[in-house]
C-alpha cells in the first residue's frame, strides 16, 4: 500500500482532462460504433475480430506519457506503490473484477453513465463504495 501522499485539489485540470476523455469516447462511438471501455478494448485487442483499431488504441494510451514528455519536457507526476505483493493482488483483482463485471471506470463510469445504463450505474455505485471502504480499512483501520 502506498503511504499517504497529499495531493492538491485540481478542479480545472481535472475537468479539462475529463472533457478530453469524453472527446475520445465520442470519437470511438462516431468512428467505430463502440463504447470506449478500456478493459473491453484490451481484451478485444487480444482475441476476437476487429483487433486492429483496439491494438492501436492501447498503443495510443502507452504513447501518451511519451508525447506528454515531448510537449512538456517532463514525465507525468506519479507515485506508485512498490510493494510487489500488494500490486500483484491489486492487478489480479482489477483484471478479474472488470472482466467478470463487464467494465471498468471508463466502460461503466464514463460510457455507461452517458448511455443511462442501469447496469453501469449499479456497477459504478458498487465499485466506488468497495474502493472507498478498502482505502478506509487500509489507511485508517489496519
Amino acid at each position, binding site marked *: 500500500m502506498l503511504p499517504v501522499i497529499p495531493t492538491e485539489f485540481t478542479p480545472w485540470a481535472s475537468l479539462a482532462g*475529463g472533457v478530453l476523455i469524453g472527446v475520445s469516447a465520442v470519437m470511438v462511438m462516431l468512428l467505430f460504433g463502440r463504447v470506449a471501455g478500456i478493459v473491453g478494448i484490451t481484451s478485444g485487442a487480444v482475441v476476437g475480430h476487429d483487433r486492429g483499431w483496439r491494438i492501436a488504441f492501447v498503443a495510443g494510451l502507452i504513447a501518451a506519457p511519451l508525447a506528454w514528455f515531448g510537449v512538456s519536457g517532463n514525465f507525468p507526476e506519479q507515485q506508485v506503490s512498490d510493494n510487489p505483493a500488494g500490486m500483484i493482488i491489486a492487478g489480479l483483482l482489477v483484471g*478479474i473484477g472488470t472482466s467478470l463485471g463487464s467494465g471498468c471506470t471508463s466502460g461503466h463510469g464514463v460510457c455507461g453513465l452517458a448511455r443511462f445504463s442501469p447496469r453501469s450505474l449499479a456497477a459504478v455505485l458498487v465499485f466506488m463504495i468497495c474502493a472507498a471502504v478498502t482505502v478506509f480499512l487500509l489507511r485508517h483501520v489496519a
Partner: protein
Amino acid sequence: MRAMFGFLSGLIFGFGLIMSGMANPAKVLNFLDIFGNWDPSLAFVMGGASVTAFLGYRMAWLRDEPLLLPDFDLPARGRIDAPLLAGAAIFGVGWGIGGFCPGPAWVALPIGATGTLVFVPTMLAGIFVGRRLKARA
C-alpha cells in the same frame, strides 16, 4: 485508417488521464479516502467525461452507422445480475489497494515504476481468468 484513428483516440484518452491527475495512483487513492486526506478532483474528471460523452453520443447516433465500421454495437441493456455486482465489488477492492484502474495502468507503463511493471501483467492475467468465470456464470 482504422489504426490511425484508433491510435489517435487512445492518445487523446491518455492525455486526458494525465491532465486530469487520474494517471497518478496517489491522487486516485486520495479521492477514495473520503474520511481522510480527501481530494475531490476526480469527481470533476468523471463529470467532465460523462457529460461530454452524453452530448457527443447523441450527435454520433444521428448517423445510421459509424464512420469506419459497418454498425453500432452497444452493450446489451440486460438485467443487473450477480456477475456484474460481484465483478464490480472485486474491481473496487483492487482499485482501492493499488490506485490503478486499467486505463491509467496502460498510461503508466512506459514510465516504468516497479509497481506498474508488476500490476500490468497480473491485470492481463486477471482479465482472462475473469472472462472464464463470466463464461461459466
